């Protein structure tokens, strides 16, 4: 049986008296690719931010590798990799310099750092462009570099926050393949996206959030069965719309 790598315990966050995340309890097992879905404003980003200790919960806690993450961040942060939705890279640095900067934040230096830079750039297919400035890259290449900057310290848990926004199908496919490859090599992944087919393709378990709560979770098939017995007739997107409704959320 797989060990739990991350657990949220009664995680709650309110903004201006509006509960954004409401008593959230999710458990992610080692080796899983866990997909977190939800319409805009469902509380996904706040949940991610609380998991990464960027936002303080009003109530509840995050347990990472069996310990309270907020209290043990110094020891545990090296095991966490975060790929933000924003392109958190420097355009005026070369590709290898970006990876060097962000990998070194975890205490990796010298020869080991050089090896990790090579390895990370190789992993995202940017070895040949290592000496080019990030500002000269296409959108897809920047996304790949964004990933390379988060994996150099070999985290046990990788959190992807909509990593395929605004890129071409080839780049998207490349990123998804790499996520699967990472997972095969033992990395646990939390993945959020609005692209249902992506989530269906790579996630071993999916949770759908709405109004700050998980309203359904399970494998893709289990979620489909919540809506119909004939799962070949329904897509994950239809399940999502059935469960969360068709009303626009960001009016």
């Amino acid at each position: 049986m797989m060990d739990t790598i991350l657990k949220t315990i009664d995680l709650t966050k309110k903004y201006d008296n509006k509960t954004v995340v409401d008593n959230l309890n999710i458990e992610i097992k080692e080796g899983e690719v866990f997909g977190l879905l939800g319409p805009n404003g469902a509380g996904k980003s706040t949940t991610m931010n609380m998991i990464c200790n960027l936002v303080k919960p009003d109530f509840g806690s995050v347990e990472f590798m069996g310990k309270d993450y907020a209290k043990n961040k110094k020891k545990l942060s090296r095991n966490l990799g975060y790929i933000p939705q924003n392109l958190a890279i420097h355009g005026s640095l070369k590709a290898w310099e970006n990876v060097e900067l962000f990998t070194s934040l975890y205490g990796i230096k010298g020869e080991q750092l050089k090896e990790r830079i090579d390895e990370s750039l190789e992993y995202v297919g940017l070895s040949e462009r290592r000496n080019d400035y990030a500002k000269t890259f296409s959108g897809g290449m920047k996304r790949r570099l964004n990933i390379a900057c988060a994996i150099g310290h070999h985290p046990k848990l990788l959190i992807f926050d909509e990593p395929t926004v605004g890129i071409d199908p080839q780049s998207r496919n490349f990123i998804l393949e790499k996520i699967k490859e990472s997972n095969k090599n033992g990395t646990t992944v939390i993945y959020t996206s609005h692209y249902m087919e992506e989530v269906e393709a790579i996630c071993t378990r999916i949770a759908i959030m709405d109004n700050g709560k998980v309203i359904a979770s399970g494998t893709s098939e289990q979620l489909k069965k919540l809506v119909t017995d004939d799962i070949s007739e329904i897509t994950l997107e239809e399940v999502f719309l059935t469960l969360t409704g068709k009303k626009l959320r960001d009016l």
Partner: protein
Amino acid sequence: MIRYLIKNNFKIMFRNSVNIFMYVLCPIITSAVLISAFSTLLESFESVDAFDVGFRIEEGSELSPYIDKLMEIGKDNGITFTEYKSGSPKQIVDDHNLGGFVEFGEKDYTVYESDDKEVEGATLEYLISAFFNSALSGDIDDITLDIEYSEHAVPVNSTDYYGIIYIVYFGWCAIVCAAGLLSHEKKNRINDRLKISNLSSLQIYLARLIPIVMVVALGIGTAAVITSFLLGVHWGNIVLSILLILLMITAASSMELMIYEMTFSMVGTIIITFGVVWVMGFVGGSFETYMFSGHSEMVKMLTPIYHGNRALVELSTMGHSDYVVSSMLYSIIITIVCSSIAVFIGSVRRSVKNA
């Protein structure tokens, strides 16, 4: 651990062409323009001694009660006032070889200067302006005025003065160097990446401060070398001058990073910084020479730019300055206080958000 962060932040700032404009071209251009514009203002500084001025006072002038005291203070400073009842002021100045002429009207006064005696004219303007500033704000009997140049100041030409002063002035605008980096970090949420790692607030602060100081020092150092060769600016004790400038850049960077941590807005930081530095420069001799400025000595002494300007100008002209220590102390105190505040605010901001 922050070695790589410092190195890469340095590269980001160093590669920004705005910094070449700000710290190399701007000091050179500003110095060259002012040196050229005021080339004669300080030229005869050394030779100025006692001189005569003429004056005329309109009947019923509200300034009449002050004239005797003004003449007394003028005499103490080597300026002799002689009354001329009639004639054109310009003609009187030329005919009697005067340093200037003052016409007191009902409520105001006009100073006429000789084209050949600009320094005497400037000195007369300073004396009258400083006198009436004091007279109108206090008891006339308490007024004591010393014209700085006659007792303390040293001969300096406009080349050395403006060549040095604008290196200092642009050094105080250090935050421009990091504007691109800081706004990019904020916009693209790179701060979140830094926060997720194990870096402390102090480490993040140092990883910004050190490269800012390095890049600004490199920029204005280049400007200083170029103005030395092209414009003939003389620096005094090179080692001491470099140390003073480095300390001032560190103080400026600390103060401006503190403003950034307080506002968390680059635009706000630039506006506040430019405002503060402009006022400090205005009082401290960056625009009008501190020798002739009418600001009170106390206000000048409160301004770190004044201490820096004076120390460096005196090092250039005399080879020593009583202001070296005060300038260094001022810079060190600003650095310690502002850095402490900036790190504290940064740690509060970087401790997990509540909202």
